[in-house]
């Protein structure tokens, strides 16, 4: 269990460096470190599906971010921070920290699977996750339980996720197209 805390510490330090550093490129590299730490953590928590997705998306996102930072000439951030903004962010972080402590008290132990804790809780009805695990193969025929949940029991969520991606692509292609620049250059047409 100690490996989780080492990884957590690594991720937190990388996040702090990514926020505080002046160089954009090293901030991007720190974001990559956060992502790879998270994917290692998913692997140790025995969630290979999400670990594969995390590491693949991280690589692609890192390539995009590095290309975006290298394309810009200005890679150094300058300027002082405002006093009011600092105070507001510290207050917000403190409130979130207090709420997080409250939430973490209700969670099962770190690394314990949620359905085990829910099944052992007294006076609770049998959770839906137990049904997914015990009858997933029989009802859907998929050997991968995660796949049977994502694409059969909870396929609405996947449809919503695909819609979110589709909408964001439409936004990106509408805003970042070539023809808009031509319109800007001669507004008479």
């Amino acid at each position, binding site marked *: 269990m100690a490996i989780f805390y080492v990884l957590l510490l690594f991720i937190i330090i990388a996040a702090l460096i990514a926020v505080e550093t002046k160089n954009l490129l090293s901030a991007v590299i720190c974001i990559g470190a956060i992502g790879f730490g998270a994917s290692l953590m998913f692997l140790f928590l025995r969630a290979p599906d999400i670990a*594969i*997705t995390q590491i693949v998306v991280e690589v692609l996102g890192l390539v995009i971010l590095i290309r975006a930072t290298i394309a810009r000439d200005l890679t150094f951030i300058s300027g002082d921070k405002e006093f009011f903004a600092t105070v507001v962010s510290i207050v917000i972080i403190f409130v979130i920290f207090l709420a997080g402590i409250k939430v973490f008290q209700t969670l099962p132990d770190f690394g314990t699977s949620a359905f085990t804790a829910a099944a052992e809780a007294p006076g609770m009805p049998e959770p839906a996750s137990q049904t997914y695990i015990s009858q997933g193969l029989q009802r859907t025929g*998929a050997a991968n339980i995660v796949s*049977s949940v994502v694409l059969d029991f909870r396929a609405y969520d*996947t*449809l919503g996720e695909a819609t979110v991606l589709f909408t964001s692509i439409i936004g990106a292609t509408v805003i*970042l*197209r070539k023809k808009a620049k031509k319109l800007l250059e001669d507004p008479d047409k």
Partner: protein
Amino acid sequence: MKGMTIIVKTISSWVKVLIFMFGIYIIIFGHLTPGGGFAGGVILASSYVLLMLAFGREFVEENLSLPVASKLDCVGALLFAAIAMFGLFYGAACFFWNFIQAEYLADKETAFRLISAGTIPLSNLAIGLKVGASLFLIILVLSTFRPDVSVKEKE
């Protein structure tokens, strides 16, 4: 940008096939092993991104142009919605009903085989096509876009 050195070009022209095949494997075996449509689609997109980084944008646009990629994206999304709609015409008549598994495969011993689980592999294919095409589109659009400085200077 006309691409990188000949070392990078040679190695990426070998590796691109392996990456593409790994993406297809992740998609097709999504219902048996870890992975699935989303991860496989991102791997497919990343093989094209490798080509774009090594050979330049024009080379990739000759192979998979922007209109073709957007059509593939729409085909993937429509395929996924159509699989969901087909559930309305069978048995339980509800959205996302796994009709192939319930109607045709329920009596047979198909577990742990490639052809099993009804609509789940088809949904994986649709999502993989959609995610791969759309992530490729994002990177193509981001690399074509340059902030136009001259317009601001005229104003």
